[in-house]
């Protein structure tokens, strides 16, 4: 079971959180302007990398705040935690 650093509450067990999938998928401003393909891309297509993944978590049994996490999907190492709306941080070479 992973330990995740909530930016508001501190480190807590994974079981306190809800996972929210890939981060930085912004809802299109004008969905009507999108082709079916572009809409499907927003809706369903995911990067799903083997490596550092930008993803959303919510502290469901704590402050109930959403936030972003950079986590390695093979080692499960949490590389960075940052607020919603903030850009994905650049990683030092070693963390990738």
């Amino acid at each position: 079971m992973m330990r995740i650093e909530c930016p508001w509450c501190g480190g807590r067990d994974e079981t306190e959180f809800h996972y929210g999938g890939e981060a930085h998928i912004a809802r299109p401003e004008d969905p009507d302007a999108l082709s079916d393909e572009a809409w499907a891309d927003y809706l369903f297509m995911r990067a799903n990398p083997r490596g550092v993944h930008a993803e959303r978590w919510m502290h469901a049994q704590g402050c109930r705040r959403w936030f972003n996490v950079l986590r390695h999907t093979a080692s499960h190492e949490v590389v960075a935690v940052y607020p919603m709306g903030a850009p994905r941080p650049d990683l030092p070479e070693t963390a990738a």
Partner: protein
Amino acid sequence: MTGPRRLPAGGRIDRSRTVAFRFDGRRYTGHPGDTLASALLANGVRLFGRSFKYHRPRGVMAAGAEEPNALVLLEPGPFAEPNLRATEIGLYDGLAAESVNRWPSLRFDLGALTGLASGLFVAGFYYKTFMWPPSWWNRIYAPAIRRMAGLARAPREPDPESYEHRHAHCDVLVVGGGPAGIAAAHAAAASGARVVLADERPHPGGSLLDGPERVEDKDGAAWAERMLAGTSALLLPHTTAFGYYDHNFVALAERLTEGLSPSERAGRPRQRIWHVRARRVVLATGAHERPLVFPGNDRPGVMLARSVTAYIHRYGVLPGSRAVFLANDDSVYAASREFARHGGEVAAFVDLRADSTADADDLPVLRGAVPLRTLGRRAVTGIEIESEGAARRIACDLIAMGGGWNPAVHLFSQSRGTLRWDDRLQTFVPGRSAQAERSVGAAAGRFDLEGCIAEGAEAGAAFARELGFDAPAPPAPPERPQRPALAQTAPPAGRSKAFVDFQNDVTAADVALARREGMHSVEHLKRWTTLGMATDQGKTSNVNGLTLMAAGLGRPPAEVGHTTFRPPYTPVPFGALAGRNIAALADPVRRTPMQDWQEANGAVFEPVGQWRRARYYPRGGETMREAVTRECRAVREAAGILDASTLGKIDIRGPDAAELLNRIYTNGWKTLAVGRCRYGLMLGEDGMVFDDGVTTRTGEHRYLMTTTSGNAAAVLEWLEEWLQTEWPGLQVYCTSVTEQWGTITVSGPQARALLEPLVEDIDLDPAAFPFLSMREARIGGAPGRIFRIAFTGELSYEVNLPWRRCLPVWERLVEAGAVPYGTEAMHVLRAEKGFIVVGHETDGTVTPVDLGMERMVSSRKDFIGRRSLARPDSRRPDRKQLVGLLPEDPAEVLQEGAQIIETPRGSPPVPMLGHVTSSYWSAAMGRGFALALVKGGRARHGDRVWASATTGESRVQIVDPVFYDREGARLDG
């Protein structure tokens, strides 16, 4: 004296007490402090069990967790524990155990007949046969295989004992209470760090208790006690660290009742699972001695050399009187000395290494000799060896073997640390760490006592310093002494079976066969032969197996590699892992304010989300149909009351609340006036209906949203997710108030008359209080709200009251003549009106258009899911659409889940048009009716089709889904 093999003195047993126990029905005696294995060995018992495949007689080989052979079923009846290792069962008075996997008895086991055909039953044989005739596989072959396999009988009765879970955080977790672990715990705790020391055995000391070793001129136990006395370290004996997970999360199983009889255990939890989050972990898990692979090495009386010493020192038991020692490692020499010192006769000492220079005191050492076979049937009577070109037999009743040591790298490997092959030790040792842990002592491949202690102390202190504690640096551990290299494991000479995996009967020949058949990967070797898959998970067999494979392939063992170590290190009861989250606590039931009343009044309940809702209230001997019919009539003709407290309620506040609703719901919300209610549908972004409910504007910037009972939490999370992740600019706050407000729905033409006497402040007259509006009022003296919304189609008042003020109002309504109705009647009444229920009429594939709710879908704004409604598949004309169904036979109530087909009695595959989503008996219509989703159904009103159910096919007519009061004339009573 408890048995002929008990030494007159020594051992950590309580000789002042004698306890009686039974094994396979026979009575024996032993002492507290014995294990079942030591007590039986003391009594001269050699035969402990039968192997998995060939049912060969087996004795006890080891003294701890690595024991592959001596498995028993402990205790009969509800306290039965299958497949326990006799080496780990603390003896208690009255203990009863039986051997496993034999029939009719351990001495005479018919299963052993398989041994006669063992030439056929080689690795993987079952993949090659049992295919003809095909019909025999399921009927004859497979059941026979199943009966032969399987070790102990399964428990059949509910578990009378309980288990618990505990969470712990610590600075340093030390796994293993041997010399290295104790030193680590001592050093870390001395600095003030929070330390947990988990040890699988009853007493700390580890290997120190197994032999004559002394530390600082004390015996092992005394040293361990001194080191741990006065430290702040939390010592957990009987506690196995069984799993090492991500982010230094280590799971421990503490056995709280080990060595206690069932009656002594009463009132205590049997085991406690610790979930430990450790900032640092010291792995001082020791090492397991490696057996030698030679013909007949499985005969009872063949034991690991250090285990022989352990039986002498822990339990005062000499496991044989005349022994042959077989060594591929210098540690066996010490074992032979201990054996001789305690009165055993060493018949011969064989060192497989021709170049060994170790010295066995006065004993002649047969260097470079090769064991050819063992003699005896159910116990060893001798051994045949080849020495200097000649075969010779040596009589003995014990063969003590030592093939070197395998560090217990299980937890290290589970932590994703990578292992390194050590050529001198001929085994894998910890290599690169992946988490904040360190292996020390024998677990790290170090076997000198001072070195282990120094290494442990150094690790404990270093971790404490890393964490900011003030720990003085202990002296650096001495250089590792260079151990003489071991001989490589070679395929054994001789014709009889040489076992690699004892429990699963995998022989050296099986390994060779696997190699010939192309199973070169260790994983293929494992899967083809079952090597390492037994209940010991290969603790004594894996390294021998892979080195044999490597030798056969002519490749270094490092290249062949190892299989993955997986949790648990040793088996853990399912019940312990389940903990307290069972029975009533499996998922605690949420209770409404009226639930006590409902239970007292005989309601029948159904699970709905986390709740249990009253489904109907049978009176006298009413059937469900009778009760529901009566309840429906009451609502249609007089008045009924429904406990609707389970519906989710979310208080939504803020200047942008209406905007939020506009984006979440399909319909528009900007024009809703204060005090007015509106029905809303919410979709997933895929355009499919996700939830529905009525939302009321309770103030200028304030709304009360209701959700389905099952989706309350999901909807709140949905709102919060959008607000926080996509629309942080909206000023809105959402709060769940489900359990702040209880809800009583009063419905029926007499609803107003019934409710009026309880209501102050407002006029219930529909003219003053129109449909789809809300009023604040005092009801039964309590401040509350009343909503004019109607799921039944009748004049209805939905009363919200503070949770604790609901029941008196409910009781007064009942006294006044309101008939309580349950969810089933509610479903009938709403279905008569053609109202959908999310989860009945929707299943995640249904759009609002499919439900005939186009009018609910605004074209003047965007909302979640809108774009998906424009996809080609969402616009197909033949999508399934909501319709009503009337069975041709009015007495029939269709089966919910019946499939709609065009014509009956087709042969598969029969095209399906849709299915029945809800189906009931209607008291109002005096007939059965149903709602259904049918392909292109809206254009097919009047058509006759068929409903295909498990109970048969019936003719139905497609109709409009609104069956009752289409004009809505009854809404105002």
